[in-house]
């Protein structure tokens, strides 16, 4: 090996937090023989926006999916190491992945509303989780948090498919918030949207960090620079550098990071 994982990670993880939202230790993901994520240590502080950047195939989406055990869906994927959430290792055999996903929500690359009404989309999570309170109020609150309420309040029972792409994605965010998660994972949430819709999503992320911890994968470096507090640069499955977004973009320690953020490769 060119670089030993130990030295790479000790350099990379400068961020510490006594009470982090999520903490990965020695996290690796294998797809069959191929190792997609290599021994990553990463501390994600609460109520911050953390951007994962890197070229295609660098393992950033795979890493993101470790945080709510979405990789369990891929039968060939194998995860080693640990992810600690509120003092519990998410990969402890006693942990139910369904419980994990209630606390750690996810928004996907392409808007993927259910073929149901706007109301039913938002209410799906609370319903399947046995919510007993005032569902109408929860739906309204979630849609307001996702900055969608004004646009849809008079047509809650119309199909979600009638909404524009940007509205659909905000509906997907509202749907995630309705389950009352602590962490929201976003996998390139604006990559399928036009610039105006993208801007609305970015503004929304900025507001959401008051209450939620957000981990966002993005291909768009300007976006990472605009919205994140911390940025992690991944390359070939390794965490190359992790630090305050300003530092990563203006004064990175690693040459590879600088080459990537200045657009010399990737």
């Amino acid at each position, binding site marked *: 090996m060119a670089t030993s994982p130990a030295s790479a990670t000790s350099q990379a993880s400068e961020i510490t937090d006594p009470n982090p939202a999520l903490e990965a230790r020695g996290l690796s993901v294998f797809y069959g023989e191929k190792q997609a994520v290599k021994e990553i240590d990463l501390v994600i502080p609460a109520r911050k926006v953390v951007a994962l950047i890197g070229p295609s195939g660098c393992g950033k989406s795979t890493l993101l999916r470790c945080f709510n055990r979405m990789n369990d869906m891929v039968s060939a994927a194998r995860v080693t190491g640990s992810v600690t959430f509120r003092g519990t290792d998410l990969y402890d055999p006693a942990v139910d992945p369904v419980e994990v996903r209630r606390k750690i929500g996810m928004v996907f690359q392409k808007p993927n509303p259910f*073929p149901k009404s706007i109301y039913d989309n938002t209410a799906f999570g609370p319903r*399947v989780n046995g919510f007993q309170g005032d569902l109408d109020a929860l739906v309204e609150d979630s849609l307001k948090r996702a900055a969608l309420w004004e646009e849809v309040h008079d047509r809650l029972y119309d199909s979600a498919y009638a909404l524009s792409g940007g509205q659909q994605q905000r509906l997907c965010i509202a749907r995630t918030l309705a389950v009352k998660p602590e962490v929201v994972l976003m996998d390139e949430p604006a990559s399928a949207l036009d610039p105006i819709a993208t801007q609305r999503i970015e503004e929304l992320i900025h507001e959401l960090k008051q209450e939620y911890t957000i981990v966002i994968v993005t291909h768009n470096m300007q976006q990472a620079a605009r919205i994140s507090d911390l940025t992690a640069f991944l390359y070939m499955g390794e965490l190359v550098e992790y630090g305050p977004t300003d530092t990563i973009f203006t004064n990175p320690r690693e040459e590879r990071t600088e080459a990537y953020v200045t657009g010399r490769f990737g």
Partner: protein
Amino acid sequence: MSGLGTGLEGASRAFERRRRLKGVVFAVLCAAATLVGVVALVVLLNDVLGDGAGRVDFDFLSSFASRFPERAGVKAALFGSIWILALTALISFPVSVAAAIYLEEYAPRNSLTRLIQLNIANLAGVPSIVYGILGLAVFVRGLGLDRSIISGALTLSLLVLPVIIIASQEAIRAVPSSIREAAYGLGATRWQVVSHQVLPMAMPGILTGTILALSRAVGETAPLIMVGAVGFIAFTPRGIGDQFTVLPLQIYNWVSRPREEFQVLAAAGIVVLLALLLTMNALAIVLRNRYQRHQ
């Protein structure tokens, strides 16, 4: 030919004409192939309706079989077919859909699953008479169900099972994985993902496959002869343990008689059978449209 030219050297007019001609010939051949099916249907309908439509009336539908052709009707066979059809649907639909859900959503992707899958595909191609023999051995003799409607329905259920399973699997597979991910991401359990999202979206396809499979079953004769459907019956079934006959068998029975009047009866029976089939196909379309509108 085209005033624009191709810019390629040697792309002569002769070549241009030839490839256009090829395109036209191909389209004509395809249209002719389509016509074979349409013409066959028109000839069949014309022949059968010409012979039998005049004989189909309320008396024909409400009379039992008789040695006197002017008094004979299809009541027993029509009721038998409907009983068999309903029971077959009740048995095969839940079993098939459950099997398809298991194979698509739960089963691990390993060699055992692939082996089961291969077996189901092979079962779909087994001749129906073989199912008849199986039904005779297992249901009529083995379980002692005798020559009854339930024996017939169970046998036909085995016959349509693989077809419905495969159609249902395809419908379930057509549900985008992004929908499953979204539901799992909200903390839904596997059962909730399947029952709230996957099944409703797959339902139009499943229903269409089921009704088409049942349409085949309602025309089956061989396996039902094996499990003891009889040609002459003068009562309607009162329960699943009764003896029965079905429309195709009654038609066959009439065709095999020498007198001209019975041939007309057979044609009339075919008209009734076709009407039943077309009703089922129409139902398939209505159900599919209805589910699609709900989404």
